[in-house]
């Protein structure tokens, strides 16, 4: 049974909070680009970019990062997937890498490999909507919407309007 633990309103507030923290930590938004990890990370990244646009009237580029080719948990056949190029330039930029859930850290490891294949960013920061713990790699997020302690048998599902029709975080 899925149980909603973060509603649409609280999710919006968490993204608002992350946005302010991004401005604070980066001392402004000059040279900033957002890279969302497919699928839901892209939409969350887009929400953050919209907020920056509302506040500062600046268009922050949002890239879509497909990390399938870089995963270490999919076995042989998937390693043949072609590596996709990012559609934005990240050379010398301050990159905010965005994902929905931070769990083992393996996705982020793969995303960083994918990023580095696309250029040499000045700085990479990690923003996640949910940090659920149980890291298997030395990775931590710079911006966290919600810390949700979980057991490893539970499942966290982030829903975004663009894909799922509504915004929420559910636990199963």
């Amino acid at each position: 049974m899925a149980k909603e633990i973060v509603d649409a309103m609280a999710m919006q507030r968490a993204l608002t909070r992350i946005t302010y923290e991004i401005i604070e930590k980066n001392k402004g938004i000059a040279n900033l680009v957002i890279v969302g990890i497919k699928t839901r990370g892209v939409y969350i990244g887009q929400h953050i970019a919209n907020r920056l646009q509302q506040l500062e009237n600046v268009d922050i580029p949002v890239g879509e990062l497909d990390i399938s080719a870089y995963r270490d948990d999919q076995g042989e056949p998937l390693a043949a997937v072609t590596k996709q190029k990012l559609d934005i330039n990240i050379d010398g930029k301050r990159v905010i890498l965005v994902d929905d859930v931070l769990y083992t850290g393996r996705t982020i490891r793969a995303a960083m490999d994918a990023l580095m294949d696309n250029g040499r960013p000045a700085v990479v920061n990690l923003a996640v909507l949910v940090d659920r713990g149980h890291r298997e790699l030395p990775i931590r997020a710079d911006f966290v919407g919600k810390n949700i302690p979980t057991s490893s048998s539970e499942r966290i599902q982030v829903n975004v309007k663009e894909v799922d029709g509504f915004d929420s975080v559910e636990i199963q």
Partner: protein
Amino acid sequence: MTRRYLILQDGSIYPGEAFGAPATTFGEIFFHTAMTGYQEIMTNPIYHNQIVVFTMPTIGVAGINHRADEAIGPMVKGVVVRSLAEVSTNRLKSMSLHEFLKRYNVPGIAQIDTRALTRHLRETGTQKASIVDVPDEHAFDQLQALVLSNQQIQQTSTPRAYVNPGRGANVVVLDFGLKNGILRKLNDYDANVTVLPFSTSIDELANLDPDGIILSSGPGNPNDVPADILELIKHFQTQVPLFGIGLGHELFALANGIQLVPMQTEHHGMNHPIREQITNQILYATQAQGYQIDATSLKDKNMIVTYVDLTDGAIQGIRHRDYPAFSVQFFPDASPGPIEASQPFEDFMELVEDRRKGDLS
């Protein structure tokens, strides 16, 4: 009913019927457009020594209920209404509005055409006024001679520090004319609150190791505030989460080199739509504002505009770009007013909790 008169500095006379105390009173007159919350408005220290005109036609239907007090007793010097409710059916009330004002020696006047009076005040701006028995030359002479105090903070701030204990975060409230709503809100988070007088030094505050600081709302002209307070704000905004409300917002702006200007039409009510810039969402909140941020002076400062009044474009909230320090002009404690406006408290307490956990450097 005894006939009494409301007289204005410009010579206008409004006859009406007395209620409350039979005293003669003087003060700066202003009008408030809120439909609810007359008790909170009368007891809010921001209206210290002023005469309030309620545009809501009938006042007093909820009686007086001490849980709605924003201070001990009324802060206003007089109350002007169209019609005074003679019956109150609120089961929480402990007395009527009439008895309350009588107890604290504050006069009221009813059967005033508050619509005409409000229109008049909109044109002339706030001015000195008096509630008297006879509107003769002597009464007007006295009114002319009245000097309005510029020591409002000194008169309303607590003379010494006190504690409102809790088991949560260590929050310090600087009292510039604090209203109870702010403390009530902090109680919701079980914060361990220390309220300090406006004259607190940087060292005295630092000794308390605050997890967060609130600059309270309060009365008067922000430009009259002693410069030491601005130094204190400048010092602490770089160290701990800081949250300014009302006058506290204005002082936060001043401390960061932003100018404040008197408003053409003051905001006293809760009917203006306010937009939160980052989400483009509209909210309503109680406002009590005679000064506003001069937008041009904010341009080159390290601040983000967070809330804007959609009726006249007045800036309603700012946030520092580099530090977890922000402020709102409206009242987020929702007493009175819509609870949708209380989000800034949650934002502040989140920052405070982050700092306690060490997530905030």
